[in-house]
């Protein structure tokens, strides 16, 4: 091994030291959730989320395809999803394993070649790829043996193909990261992929249940007569190795894997030379953010306006915070899209049908996204925002932050949703009444979230400052359950104008009451 590394021009001892250091830091870092100030029992680290997500998607896909398609299509579908999941995981989560900005400050002046550093970082990334690779390989391997046209050799053929697919996919993701200079240009891709991932998962859920319900066997037909896009996919050409043991696809895939990994490594080496020698950046002139006086209409005090402006600035300028915000809202965008495309997005005023549940469901999903947005902003140790806002944390601040979240993200989405409803339903009045009710319900959900940060048996643990996002799932569950219950009442109340009016009045009353209750007591001179 040492001889091989030396032949590759890698400094053996520094390489081993760096690999050991990166692995040590990973085990102590936030991905494994063992950082200071967090007890293992209180959180669900990001790595577990990613791992669970991959296992779930893989299981659903296997369950949906098993018995319906032949071995080649089964292998193709699973390898393709594995490639997409690994690509997305590297871009969205694990790019941190490939490059840490601290590296420049800590080892930039040490006698380490860029080749040594890049190989150490690449090996570090491959550790994560191996972990997620196992997650997307277990179910297709185990369930694939049971297909009617496979034999026992599937047990080693599929994992080999899966390893190659995962390494290729990770190498391509790494290549894009490197082309983006490890920096800002990469963020757009990260956000786009985070959205795509959510959309893909929802489509898979919907597609899965569609296939189970579908009596025409359209998926089976597609596997026997694949469309052109399937025939052109690289994983389709690798699948014969898995299904029939064909050697040529394996050899070609092996060569491609080596080339792609080599290119990614070469790119990292060049990029390291770039980042390690250009450390300083030119100061930027940025536009100040003010809080307008009309915020008083939303019950924001003068002091609260300063908090509002600070919150808007943090949302606008903290790229990491933004990149965690969009995925939380992704569900609220994807549910209406799927509902509309499936033709199941009817107005609740048109009658108590299953299709009328989906629009209300999309509003409930938006309510469920608010705790994550607030947690990232006010309590997460991963974002500087929570530390900036901590010293001002009282009723005024809580309300201002809730209003900032509402006006920055929720209201624009609701307005857009209202326009879409007008177009889909062809009934402006129904769309308007629906949007008004949504606006009040979502505002109430935002208020409920900030009010739940007051001392309480569950809330005090869930909103503990400095935790990871795992703890806030309790609040997400609570808010979602409550919003779903209110949504059910809304559906029933939509049958009559009087009932609907009473329903909105009660919601609005609860909203005003929640603001008044949380007001800090003013000292009387």
């Amino acid at each position, binding site marked *: 091994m040492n001889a091989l590394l030396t032949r590759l021009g890698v400094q053996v001892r520094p390489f081993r030291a760096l690999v050991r*250091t990166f692995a040590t830091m990973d085990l102590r870092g936030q991905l494994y959730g063992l950082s200071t100030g967090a007890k293992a029992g209180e959180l669900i680290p990001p790595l577990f989320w990613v791992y669970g997500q991959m296992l779930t998607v893989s299981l659903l896909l296997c369950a949906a395809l098993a018995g319906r398609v032949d071995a080649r299509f089964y292998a193709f579908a699973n390898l393709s999803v594995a490639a997409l999941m690994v690509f997305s995981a590297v871009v969205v989560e694990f790019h941190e394993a490939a490059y840490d900005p601290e590296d420049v400050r*800590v080892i930039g*002046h*040490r006698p380490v070649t860029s080749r040594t550093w890049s190989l150490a970082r690449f090996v570090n990334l491959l550790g994560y790829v191996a972990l997620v690779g196992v997650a997307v390989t277990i179910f297709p391997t185990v369930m694939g043996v049971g297909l009617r046209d496979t034999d026992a050799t599937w047990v080693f053929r599929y994992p080999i193909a899966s390893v190659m697919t995962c390494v290729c996919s990770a190498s391509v993701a790494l290549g894009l990261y490197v082309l983006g200079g490890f920096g800002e240009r990469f963020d757009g891709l990260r956000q786009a992929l985070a959205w795509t991932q959510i959309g893909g998962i929802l489509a898979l859920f919907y597609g899965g249940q569609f296939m189970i319900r579908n009596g025409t066997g359209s998926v089976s037909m597609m596997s026997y007569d694949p469309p052109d896009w399937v025939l052109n996919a690289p994983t389709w050409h690798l699948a014969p190795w898995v299904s029939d043991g064909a050697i040529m696809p394996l050899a070609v895939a092996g060569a491609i894997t080596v080339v792609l990994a080599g290119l990614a490594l070469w790119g990292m080496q060049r990029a390291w030379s770039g980042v390690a020698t250009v450390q300083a950046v030119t100061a930027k002139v940025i536009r100040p953010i003010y809080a307008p006086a009309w915020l008083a209409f939303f019950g924001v005090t003068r002091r609260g306006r300063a908090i509002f402006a600070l919150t808007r600035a943090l949302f606008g300028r903290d790229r990491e915070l933004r990149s965690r915000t969009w995925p939380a809202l992704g569900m609220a965008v994807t549910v209406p899209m799927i509902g509309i495309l499936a033709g199941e997005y009817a107005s609740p005023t048109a009658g108590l049908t299953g299709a009328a549940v989906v629009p209300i469901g999309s509003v409930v999903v938006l309510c469920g996204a608010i705790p994550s947005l607030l947690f990232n902003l006010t309590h997460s140790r991963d974002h500087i925002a929570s530390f900036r806002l901590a010293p001002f944390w009282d009723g005024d601040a809580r309300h201002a932050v809730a209003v900032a979240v509402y006006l920055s993200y929720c209201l624009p989405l609701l307005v857009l949703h209202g326009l879409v409803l007008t177009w889909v339903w062809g009934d402006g009045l129904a769309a308007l009444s629906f949007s008004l009710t949504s606006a009040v319900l979502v505002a109430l959900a935002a208020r409920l979230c900030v009010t739940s940060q007051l001392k309480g048996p569950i809330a005090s643990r869930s909103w503990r400052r400095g935790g990871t996002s795992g703890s806030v799932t309790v609040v997400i569950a609570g808010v979602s359950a409550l919003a779903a219950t209110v949504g059910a009442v809304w559906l029933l109340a939509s049958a009559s104008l009087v009932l609907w009016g009473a329903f909105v009045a009660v919601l609005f009353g609860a909203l005003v009451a929640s603001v008044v209750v949380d007001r800090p007591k003013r000292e009387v001179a």
Partner: protein
Amino acid sequence: MSGIEVSGLSHRYGETQALSDVHFTVPPGEICGLLGPNGAGKTTALSAIVGTLRPDAGTIRLGGYCPQEGLQARQLLGYVPDSGGLYGLLSPREHLLLASDLHELDPAVAAAKMVELVEQFGIGAILDQRIDTLSKGQRQRTAICCALLHEPRILLLDEPLNGLDVDAARVLRDVIRSAADNGAAVLYCSHILDVVERLCDRAIILSAGKVVADAPTSELVAKSADKTLESVFHALTHSADVDELSGAFDA
């Protein structure tokens, strides 16, 4: 072997000229202070010297080697950055071992040196604590030990007294003097002028990216009205016309 040689160093950030035709040398055995007001270009100069910033123009030689080419210059270099320079998730012991491995030091020699530095700077009690849980002074001590472990021939220190208590500051001054006596070239960047006055053999003052004074500390002090480096610094760095003053205090 030569020490630090900087010639024609220039660098620009957008519209801002951070360094403009900077020349100086620090021979082996000398402690040279690098002074200047905020934004004068000190950190840019240090970044270029350690090789983490590629300047627009100029050449840099450390012990005769260019820091941008090959590893020889970096083998000779010990650097204490202004802040950071340590992985927060490691312990001081792990960091020292990392530094030892990156410089490929003989394990026995490195272990002996480590014991010596740990004792000198009093970090024995915190050796296995995570760096992100340490105080600023403890981190600074750790950074200094990591920089000195391989007995560098070129020593660059950017505000090394930041966060250090009286005892540690005294130890550091002794260590720096001892390193220079053993032939190391030391570039000491600081805002604490009385320390520079006592410790440094020579001082370079930067203002608006230009060298406005480069002379033995004693001569600079002797030429000022109240015999302090502070008044020299004030006179040189508060002038509107840096070019006019440049060289006025040269030896």
